[in-house]
């Protein structure tokens, strides 16, 4: 969207007057700060942003953004956002959700919003735990998770959000980490510029109920455990000492001292087959955790197709006149 007068905002313009009430040390603070910092760079009027959330710790987010905001009910944020976007496609609509809100109670809406390619940006704060209800296992908790609700360990197999999103026909799937501030900002920007439904899974630390669950990706040796995906570039990690090559469909980690860059898998974010393969590296015992844009393609959005359908109907039939419609059909007159 072109702006005649590009507004100049600072982070402060996106801060509401409400006191932030997450636990001290919560990863949500970093995500909020980075979002408030990144929004001004879009050059878009503040009143055109709408943040919609469900229920949970992360879903308090809209209260802290000085934009239009909607704290809805548990799991349904994508459906509310759909109504907002269809009613006014000129708005930039963001969904804030968590692993419980978005994938458990709201799994249905998550899936359908993505398959419709509704142009909304879904930020999934994944901390692999229920925080607001004080620490039960979530649909992304690892098997055997010991919580108050699972004293003998949870039996559930976790969902893999990027795989789920790809299966649901999402056109933009990315992952980032609360502590990776610059990366997080980049992902927000990519999502904003993607015309269509987008998912950013954000690994977020819950220091009260699940502290350190993503420690491998934020610790000093994090680069040994994470691979940052870059479109068109070979897959190297561990500061260039390791790489990934494909043996048939099977990715393997190789030592770069023994292999050349030519052996490596090249990331192509427009390749759906590759995206599925990469998404499967999630929590893999050997392969590094993929971070970055896993998949991004352009397809017509639901909201733009809806506008086109209305326009085309008006063109074909002429703008409808209500009185004519009332008068239509077989009528008779009583004098």
């Amino acid at each position: 969207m072109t702006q005649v007068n590009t507004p100049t905002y600072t982070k402060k313009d996106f801060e509401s007057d409400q006191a932030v009430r997450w636990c001290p040390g919560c990863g949500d603070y970093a995500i909020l700060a980075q979002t408030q910092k990144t929004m001004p760079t879009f050059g878009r009027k503040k009143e055109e942003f709408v943040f919609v959330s469900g229920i949970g710790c992360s879903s308090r987010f809209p209260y802290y953004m000085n934009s239009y905001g909607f704290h809805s009910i548990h799991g349904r944020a994508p459906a509310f956002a759909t109504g907002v976007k269809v009613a006014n496609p000129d708005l930039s609509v963001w969904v804030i959700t968590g692993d419980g809100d978005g994938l458990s109670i709201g799994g249905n809406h998550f899936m359908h919003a993505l398959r419709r390619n509704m142009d909304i940006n879904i930020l999934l704060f994944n901390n692999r735990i229920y925080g607001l209800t004080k620490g039960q296992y979530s649909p992304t908790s690892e098997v055997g998770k010991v919580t108050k609700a699972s004293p003998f360990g949870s039996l559930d197999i976790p969902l893999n959000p990027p795989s789920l999103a790809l299966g649901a026909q999402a056109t933009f799937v990315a992952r980032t980490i609360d502590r990776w501030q610059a990366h997080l900002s980049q992902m927000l920007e990519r999502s904003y510029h993607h015309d269509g439904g987008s998912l950013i899974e954000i690994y977020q630390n819950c220091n009260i109920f699940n502290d350190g669950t993503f420690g491998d990706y934020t610790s000093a040796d994090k680069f040994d455990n994470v691979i940052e995906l870059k479109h068109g570039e070979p897959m190297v990690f561990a500061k260039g000492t390791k790489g990934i090559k494909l043996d048939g469909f099977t990715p393997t980690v190789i030592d770069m001292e023994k292999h050349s860059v030519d052996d490596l898998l090249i990331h192509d974010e427009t390749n759906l087959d590759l995206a599925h393969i990469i998404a499967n590296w999630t929590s893999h015992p050997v392969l590094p955790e993929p971070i970055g844009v896993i998949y991004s393609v352009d397809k017509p959005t639901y909201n733009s197709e809806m506008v086109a359908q209305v326009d085309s109907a008006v063109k074909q039939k002429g703008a409808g006149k209500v009185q004519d419609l009332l008068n239509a059909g077989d009528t008779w007159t009583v004098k």
Partner: protein
Amino acid sequence: MGKTFKTIDDAVIRFAGDSGDGMQLTGGRFTETTAVVGNDLSTLPDFPAEIRAPAGSLAGVSAFQIHFSSKDIHTPGDSPDVLVAMNPAALKVHQKEIVPGGTIIINTDAFTKKNMNFAGYESSPIEDGSLDDYFTVIPIEMNKLVTAACEGLEMSRKFVGRTKNFFALGVLYYMYDRPLEATEKWLEKKFAGKDIIIEANKRAMNAGYNYADTTELFTTRFKVEKASLPKGTYRNINGNYATALGLLTASEKSKLKLFYGGYPITPASDILHTLAAWKHFGVQTFQAEDEIAGISSIIGAAFTGNLSVTATSGPGIALKGEAMGLAVMIELPMVIINVQRGGPSTGLPTKTEQADLNQALYGRNGEAPIPLIAASTPGDCFYAAYEASRIALKYMTPVVLLSDGYLANGSEPWKIPNVKDLEPIDVKFAKGSKSKDDFLPYERDNKTLSRPWAIPGTPGLEHRVGGLEKAENTGHVSYDPDNHQRMVELRQEKVNRIQDDIAKTEVYGDNNGDVLIVSWGGTYGSCRSAVETLHEDGKSVSHIHLRWISPLPKDLGEIIIMFKNVLVPEINMGQLIKLLRAEYLVDAKGLNQVTGRPISATRIIENVNQLIG
């Protein structure tokens, strides 16, 4: 052939056959022709929930009843004067309801041994004389006759057989002296490009007409003169279509885009279908992934400044309950329609009931009052939908509109309104202000207590809404005890203030007397018919029909106490009656029936007579 014409005031006919026999279509054509002839009419489609139950089974019987008259009528009639039975199952299901001395037109070709066994007849009811003492039976070999009529057309026997409903229609057109032209035109339009189907059905219909004319089966034809309805231009309309028209008209008058989000469910889906075809009016319909997404999407669209609507039936409302509570909390306008069907659970999807009143009034957590309006006739669905939209927009509140399966699918002549004459709907969005800190999203209008509607895209009015309790005026999250008390009271008071906006209660009959009938929703017609008959008998009976149930009209209490008895007929086990007893401490009596069908006027008359002994 020297047949005599007999002029009658009204007639009730019922077409009944297998689900695949096209009975709804036949009834629909007879209705359109009857409307154009100028009779008053009322219809009752009655079909199974299964799309195709096993052919010839009792469960698969589909029926359509029409009552038409030269007088002003209110119901589809209690018992048919004429039954058209296309197969043994149809006869078996419906024969007990025909008026004594009535006529049964039977397609004898369907009375095979197998079909009769299936329907539970041990011997042929046509041949064993079991019907002859009570009814005039007219057996016709319809399959054979349409086969002859369609001779020379390149059509399989199966397809020729399917035209027999048009043969039956032709017979009825002859009996009641109706023209064939409207139906012929409809066939030409409906099957444009399929000349052979048009021709076959026309031949079948004409064959039926001529057969009735030339045979000695009918000695009398009937004339039902034009009804003397109020001046105006009329069309025939059913409740779901009228509802959709009412919503569209409200969108035009409010100059708001219409957004509909919903999930398919019987008997509400036709509202979605109708609106979906109106894209050239700018209507946006969203078929959601489930009922919850349906209402969530409309709340989102309401936040964004659209006239937002969802329609469902009882099971759908159960799923929407949490979101309806949110709609109360965030005080945004929207219309939530429940086209009621038989419950509980999946219940009777294609049958009518009024048992979701309590659900509409109380089916949410917390104190969550929602204004509630109920449509009274198929045509009234237009005005009820319009009024629901008007109040929702004026008071910034969700409004529940109750319709039901009978209203949704039933039809009646409808005087076409002039859009210009309808009450205006003025919507003002909050305007952006320069100093950004002074906007109060929960500041209230002194009169209506409505809050401002500040839609995204408006500079300076950025604000947040949500399901957590709101602080008065600022709308910030608040857990303050006194504030909660105040907000709960304000939300109720806002609903109460609607009393100032709704029409005074009309008493049909005297303002005091022996019996007052209080009704709501689709029982209007039966109650009004009953009272008209009781008045002819000189009984002291009056009738009031409630349009708004939340809030109840201000004057209701003072009207009720003027009567010795209060009778509340409902298609439930007594839901409005409990409200009336609680509100007005009146010893009202219920008339409760839950058979999936309208209460008959006859039953109401019996009840009144018992009351006043």
